[in-house]
């Protein structure tokens, strides 16, 4: 029997689905609330996980940094974590993730990186408007803003100088991918979930309210998507580029039909895609964890 741990910090529908599937597949399932866990340099697995050592851990924290550090603790205790620290670290930083995609030859939007406000202004002068600025650490489409002119740029630079967090000095500026709009002025992107490198399901995410962001967290609608060979191949290649595991690969369709991968997500949410998918996604994830534990 596989001893499977689900590390979480907010028990969402996804974590409950994973727990249910793990129990259905006969796993001995242990829930670990990362908010209450503590560890020390001389800790044993039982000091961190109430039930003791597990064969495999599904890391599902909604807080990226909490999950990343929890993963490091669990790996230091020789437990296999999905996703591994190296994968989570690569996906959690958009600049690192983009560079991995580029290095692996996965088509991705042209992106500029600058490390001061002055350098960011120079990028805009050279590349020209518009570009999309994205926080290097962040999710759910927050802080993703199209910069269409100098006024917007000035406002963003001023806001960042006020908050002045360590990541505010890192500027990630990406080309705007021109996409087709439907009759209601909505654009779409594609989310593919990969499990162990295998694309298991795809959906279209329709932008909400005429905006250009299609994140479901912002009100985007999930729509069933028949996965093409190109989508599947790109998703697998993107998964390989960051080290594999359980991932959410985001793609956009250029107006000429060519696909680009613009994001790889580490702790992938699947409540929305499960509504339109024919596959049992949590079951595939748990089965992958069980197979990983047996290796």
């Amino acid at each position, binding site marked *: 029997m596989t001893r499977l741990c689900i590390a*979480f*910090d*907010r*028990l*969402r529908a996804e*974590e*409950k689905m994973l727990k249910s599937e793990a129990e259905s597949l006969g796993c001995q399932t242990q*829930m670990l*609330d990362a*908010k209450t866990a503590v560890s020390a340099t001389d800790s044993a697995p039982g000091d961190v996980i109430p039930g003791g050592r597990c064969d495999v851990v599904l890391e599902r924290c*909604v*807080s*990226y*940094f*909490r999950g990343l550090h929890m993963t490091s603790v669990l790996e230091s205790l020789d437990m296999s974590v999905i996703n591994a620290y190296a994968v989570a670290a690569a996906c959690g930083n958009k600049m690192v993730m983009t560079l991995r995609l580029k290095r692996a030859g996965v088509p991705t939007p042209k992106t500029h990186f600058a490390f001061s406000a002055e350098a960011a202004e120079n990028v805009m002068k050279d590349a020209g408007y518009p570009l999309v600025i994205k926080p290097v*650490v*962040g*999710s*759910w489409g*927050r802080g993703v803003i199209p910069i269409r002119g100098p006024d917007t740029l000035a406002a963003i630079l001023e806001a960042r100088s006020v908050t002045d967090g360590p990541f505010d000095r890192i500027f990630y500026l990406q080309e705007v991918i021109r996409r087709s709009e439907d009759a209601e002025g909505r654009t779409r992107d594609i989310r593919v979930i990969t499990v162990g490198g295998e694309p298991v399901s795809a959906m279209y995410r329709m932008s909400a309210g005429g905006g250009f962001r299609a994140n479901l*967290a912002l009100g985007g609608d999930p729509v069933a998507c028949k996965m093409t060979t190109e989508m599947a191949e790109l998703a697998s290649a993107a998964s390989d580029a960051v080290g594999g595991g359980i991932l*959410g690969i985001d793609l956009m369709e250029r107006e000429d039909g060519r696909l680009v991968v613009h994001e790889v*997500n*580490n*702790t*992938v*949410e699947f409540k929305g895609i499960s509504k339109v998918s024919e596959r049992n996604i949590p079951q595939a994830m748990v089965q992958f964890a069980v197979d990983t534990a047996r290796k």
Partner: protein
Amino acid sequence: MNCQECDAGLGIPDDADVGEIVSCPDCGADYEVAGRDGSGIKLKQAETVGEDWGE
């Protein structure tokens, strides 16, 4: 069990698990199920959305 903010009934489901979030139907305040003690449920204020939250 009632909301600490507005005193509305929270209507916590019988099968709520530890870690699950319960929202007040009236004012929207979020609570986390912190523990179960027999038929009783312990709640604590839920964390607010952090800058690093997401996928």
